């Protein structure tokens, strides 16, 4: 019997010794973490292709007038969403999930998670700049993605109705159990501006990688936002701050214009890299560049060759500042044009034309460019908007411009499409300029739908 006791004793000792608390705490997968450290939070922000620098809305791009496609190509589109968006149908998604809604909110979920956890960390003195970068980046991306969502799913800002027009749900916590109703457009823009403004003190002037936010990109986004709400003075102010830090322009004469992709991703002009949530319809196998735009490029305008490929007889978009066809980030050319527009709108014709000419001289064949001149601010504005159209094709900006410029009866246009003999039109300020909230969202959180 003694032996039995010995055995029992032995096993108990064996068991309790293995009962060290940490034995069952070992991670089941080395790559798994509960992200709480500074390094983890930065690694979340560095999730560039899957999260933060990807998934910018494409619905606006699909519905805008940079291109057209043939009927067989339209028929062969995989998703109803793309087919319906192309013809501005009333019903868009037909039950399909909507990545344009899901992905920006995914970025916001990440940003909120990071913001909740960064505040729990008290950084050592040598880690303050890391801490700042994380905090600033998360704030920036939240503002950036709220902006992207507002641009598609709520009405264009109108100071008369902004306080009552429904905005987007403003999720400021990562808790997935929260049900958040729609804000107003005014609240939405308040949040965008407050997030972007708050990010500035934490961000470096220039980021270590162009996939990370910086003061430059925050200024640029604020300039975009203020331009959208017609506050040209502030827009000018922020565009100026941005260009003060980064004013590099690529001389298109230095490009290999015969290359199928003349631009590299993260090139000198890029301020922040972001990619569109790739639609099939805008790929260069399918979309044909609008013939009026194509014709508007002078033969000495190198953009005609840098942007467009005509190998198969149709003008096809080669690709932009992502080395592919889906750039939706921020670049110097856009901000320079934005500043020019603000100068023009604030009647500073000279400054407006200087910005425009500074840009265009890099776009034309060396020695062939004759600087443009304008006698009035209105004339300058018209020139700037024309060049903006030519410079920023397939950048995800056209839809925003249509929504914005349609407010001005002088600039408003009606879009038309001809598909298999049938004509479709989209008049200015139509309710179809606001996309419906995805069905899945309505079912889950019962928020109000946009009229269409």
């Amino acid at each position, binding site marked *: *019997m*003694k032996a*039995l006791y010995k*055995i029992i004793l032995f*096993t108990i000792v*064996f*068991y309790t010794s*293995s*009962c060290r608390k940490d034995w*069952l705490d070992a*991670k*089941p*997968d*080395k*790559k*798994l*973490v*509960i*992200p709480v450290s500074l390094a*983890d939070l930065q*690694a*979340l922000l*560095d*999730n*560039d*292709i899957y999260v933060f*620098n990807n998934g910018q809305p494409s619905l606006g791009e699909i519905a805008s007038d940079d291109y057209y496609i043939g009927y*067989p190509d339209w*028929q062969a589109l995989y998703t*109803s969403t793309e087919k319906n968006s192309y013809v501005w149908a009333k019903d868009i998604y*037909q*039950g399909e*999930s*909507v990545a344009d809604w*899901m992905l920006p*909110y*995914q970025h*916001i*979920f990440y940003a*909120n998670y990071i913001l909740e956890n960064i505040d729990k960390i008290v950084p050592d003195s040598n880690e303050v700049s890391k801490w700042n970068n994380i905090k600033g980046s998360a704030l920036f991306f939240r503002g950036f993605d709220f902006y992207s969502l507002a641009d598609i799913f709520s009405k264009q800002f109108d100071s008369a109705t902004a306080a009552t027009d429904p905005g987007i*749900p403003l*999720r400021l916590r*990562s808790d*997935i159990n*929260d*049900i*958040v109703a729609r804000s107003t457009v005014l609240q939405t823009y308040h949040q965008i501006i407050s997030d972007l403004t708050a990010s500035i003190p934490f961000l470096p002037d220039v980021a270590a*990688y162009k*996939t990370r936010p910086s003061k430059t990109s925050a200024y640029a986004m604020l300039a975009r936002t203020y331009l959208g709400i017609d506050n040209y003075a502030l827009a000018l102010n922020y565009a100026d701050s941005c260009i003060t830090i980064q004013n590099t322009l690529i001389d298109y004469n230095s490009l290999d214009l015969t290359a*199928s*992709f003349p631009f590299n*991703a993260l090139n000198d002009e890029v301020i922040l890299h972001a990619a569109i949530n790739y639609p099939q319809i805008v790929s260069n196998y399918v979309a044909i560049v609008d013939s009026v735009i194509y014709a508007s490029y002078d033969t000495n305008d190198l953009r005609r060759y840098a942007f467009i490929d005509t190998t*198969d*007889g149709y003008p096809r978009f080669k690709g932009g500042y992502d080395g592919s066809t889906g750039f939706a980030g921020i670049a110097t050319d856009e901000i320079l044009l934005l500043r020019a527009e603000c100068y023009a709108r604030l009647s500073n014709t000279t400054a407006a034309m200087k910005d425009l000419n500074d840009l265009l001289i890099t776009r034309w064949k060396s020695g062939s460019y004759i600087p443009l001149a304008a006698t009035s601010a209105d004339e300058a504005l018209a020139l700037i908007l024309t060049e903006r159209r030519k410079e920023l094709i397939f950048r995800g900006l056209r839809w925003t411009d249509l929504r914005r410029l349609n407010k001005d009866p002088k600039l408003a246009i009606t879009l038309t499409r001809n598909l298999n003999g049938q004509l479709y039109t989209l008049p200015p300020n139509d309710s179809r300029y606001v996309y419906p909230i*995805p069905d*899945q*969202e309505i*079912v*889950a*959180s019962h928020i109000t739908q946009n009229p269409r």
Partner: protein
Amino acid sequence: MKILCCFLPLLLCTFILRAQQANTTLRGKIVSASTREPVEGAVISLLHNKKTALSKSDGSFTITISSPVDSLLVSHVSYLPQTIAVNSGTPALLITLSESITKMNEVTVNTGYQNIPKERATGSFVTVNTELLNNRVAPDVISKLEGITSGLVFYKGITGRNTELSIRGQSTILSNAQPLLVVDNFPYEGDINTINPNDVESITILKDAAAASIWGVRAGNGVIVITTKKGSYNRPLQVTLNANVTVGKKPDLFYNRDFLSSAEFIGVERFLFDMGYYNADFTAVNKRPVTPVVDILYRQRQGLLNAAEANTAIDQLKSIDIRNDLQKYFYRQSVNEQYSLSLQGGNERGNYFLSGGYDKDIASARGSENDRVTIHSVITSRPLKRFEVSAAVDFIASTSMADNTLSQITMGGPNGKSIYPYAGLAGSSGNALSIVKDYNTDFISHATEHGFLNWQFLPLDELRNQYNTTSSKSYETRVLAGIAYHVSKSINAEIKFQYENSMGYRRKLSTLQSYQARNSINMFSTVSAGEFVNYNYPAGGLLDQYNTGLNSYNLRGQLNYNKGWGRHSMVAIAGIEQRQFTNESNSKRFYGYDDDLATFTDVDPTSYFTTYPANRSFQIPTGQDITATLDRFRSVFGNAAYTYDNRYTLSASGRVDGSNYFGVEANKKNVPLWSAGFKWNIDQERFYHAGWLRLLKTRITYGYNGNLNKSITAYTSGFYSSDAPYTGRSFLTILTPPNKELRWEKTGILNAGLDFALRNNIVAGTLEYYYKNGKDLIGDNTIAPSTGFIDINSFTNTVKGNFANMKGHGWDVQLNSVNINRSFKWTTQFLFSYATDKVTFYGGSNPPSQLVHIGNGSSGFVLPVQGKPVYGIYSFKWAGLNPSTGNPRGYVGDIASEDYPLLDNPALLTDIQYNGPARPREYGSIGNTFSLKHFSLFVNITYKLDYYFRRSSVNYYYLFRYNNSNGDYSKRWQKPGDEKTTQVPSLQYPPNISRDDFYNNSSILVEKGDHIRIQDISLNYNLTKNVLVKLPVNRVELYAYVNNVAIIWRANKEGIDPDYPSGIPPLRTYAIGLRTSF
């Protein structure tokens, strides 16, 4: 002290007996016939004067005899009763008891923790012994179980999945649904298929909670306990040799329904060409490939060929059928050889079992070969009286080689098409021919003249020269050590340790000569005006290495208690165990690899290169990854069974499991699971006199089994990936949102069984009913997209949690009958199982269209619907063809409609039809054994009933775009009136993808899966010692075996094997073999 314990009662007895000197004392000892071990607890009764006594731990007994002549009845639960005539003068007796053979199957069942006498087992066990296993010739163990194991079913041919096992249907939704595999008392982590079936002694299937709950959280899907062979004490050397060879036919490529004859296919191409369908291909920048027929037609259009020339060329192609070349050059008869030699023996102090096996498998796909060497050794010894030590070492080395050419015989290009049916692979002299692959023929010849590597694809060349192969090696080592200490006759303490290591090395090599390497090198070259300039992709072979290392250790301490006294008997165990399992893998790619020199070249993985001729920008992937996972478990377990008078048995078991569940609060890392059972041996009752029903027992159990799902966590978790494309930094992706309410899955199982046997076992059987109630099962819950949480696997806004419940119930019936029992003997084993499951609560929702497409579990997805089984066949409602156009029609509401986008994407679950379960609800087998003298013949018929599958049909969109053919094309509606004889829609141009998708998923293509097949037949010629007196052998057995014999009945009229609705079913194989021992 122990000695005192044993002797004290004995002394007392003798003292008492001496007080009654008037009578004679009869002494004796009882031992087991097989082991010569003393038998304790046997009841010794004198029939005449009604006295009884019990045998002691050393087998001895004394009983007082008062009448001069009497009969002594010796009985014990595990042994056959024996009656001995005695008188007052009888000297000390040595009584040898034989093990009872009255049990239906085995004497004991092995749960992996203990051997329980079947007589006293309350739970649901199925035992498959060596003889049954030997009926089938197979390279692995598991496939031997099919059709002979009650309650076990194999799901085969599910798209995107391997063959799956299921014990009594589905018990979980999103978690692992496979039964736990246990080999020699411990979970087996390596590849179970590498175990040599010749080393397997028996297999026990644990089905209900009482049987399986000892395995705790891993028992939710049932447990398969495999016990390998061991030696026995006191047994002379026995050598057993088994050798067999299995030959299989070439696969029948003509069975495949997804094929269209060359003539018809060319008809389609001509039609499409005339419609201008290929026009874009001729001018495309990326030099898209066109098939030879389209190429000829294009040349004709350009005036390079006249009509007669074109027609002659096309007619020549019409006579080619790629299946002939494939069958001739890419397939062969399979040959599988299996040899196994074993030695076993033992004396008083020790025993051993040693075996070696060699298998060589030449598969039907040329270039594909496997072989395996296995060594199994066990030594058990009793160095000291109360100690037993055992050690076992198993080693398995397997290698396999496969050629990758066959899978590359497709047409590439931007769309990735299937190969055209008139592709000739070999010329008249057997020389290799090239097929159209990724680019058009003109481009390829142009490129070859301008500095590029030859861009042709010659499949037969690749196969013959082994340009593109995958070879694997794996080494599996298992070491077991055990020590048992017999504390007393009834208490036994043991410690068991197992270490398992499995190393796998896989290398996929595409040499510089392979098309794959040449294509990549050419594509990534720098090109100027069509001229090759330089390589960016190293000009050499490509080697992909994938190495895995798997380690597990198990340590178990266990106390066993086994005691019988009077009418009572008690068996109990208690123990603790700890196990750890690690799995590491790494993959690495070498560019510019030269296999002769083992040299390679580095690449620039960060730069973007423009590919030629497609003009796309790509990076050269590094192909590197490392993973490391770790599972830890710590468990305390115990069970006890008490039997009274061999009539009533009560059992209970409990277990607490702890695991390194990630991100879970400590108190939730452990889960307690329990079971209880009761068994009533009615036939042992005094009132029971139904002699015709010799055996009648009933039992009932209830308890919980668990399941693990480590994919969810209580806190927000994420996983790291390396090398973000723009920064090169490591980055983190969020995997799970926090879930503080996370619990383990639990399934409550009620099992009620009845065992019976008629006189002489003419009919004997088991009937079982069970009811399963799965609670807190892991399920999906749909959340608002604005929450921003996206499940990275399904790309939907769903979270996993304990959101689902399901129920299931069913029957298992097993009947064994002896139909004729003379010199000609005919016995039958009939198995029938009914298993059904129903999701009773599910928080997620799935779009109806998705259910139609993948609700059957194909593609590896699970889409549960409340009120339906986990896997179901759903379809679009079918309203027949439009008689004037041949258009397929569905229903919108009650109205026949051709609004395909709407029909193809219905809003509500009620808009689609639920046809029935995708997995058989009824299944089983009828095995007949006929024997005459030395011959025996076993014919096993299996059946699966009450389920559905979807057959493929023509999809015009895919036919045009991807060359995906289907024979139904020939049956298509072509003119009004055809709708009376066909349900295949008319050809429509341009194709409408929604129309095709609607038809392909409509109810008209859903078929009943019910079928009956003759699975296998084996014929044995068996000679035993008494015939072989002159030969130095004990036994010679010659056998012949046919597997996958034939389907004898199927519900579908299309001649489809419902186990393999697409692809090619396994071939019939023939085996002959010899088994002998001496």
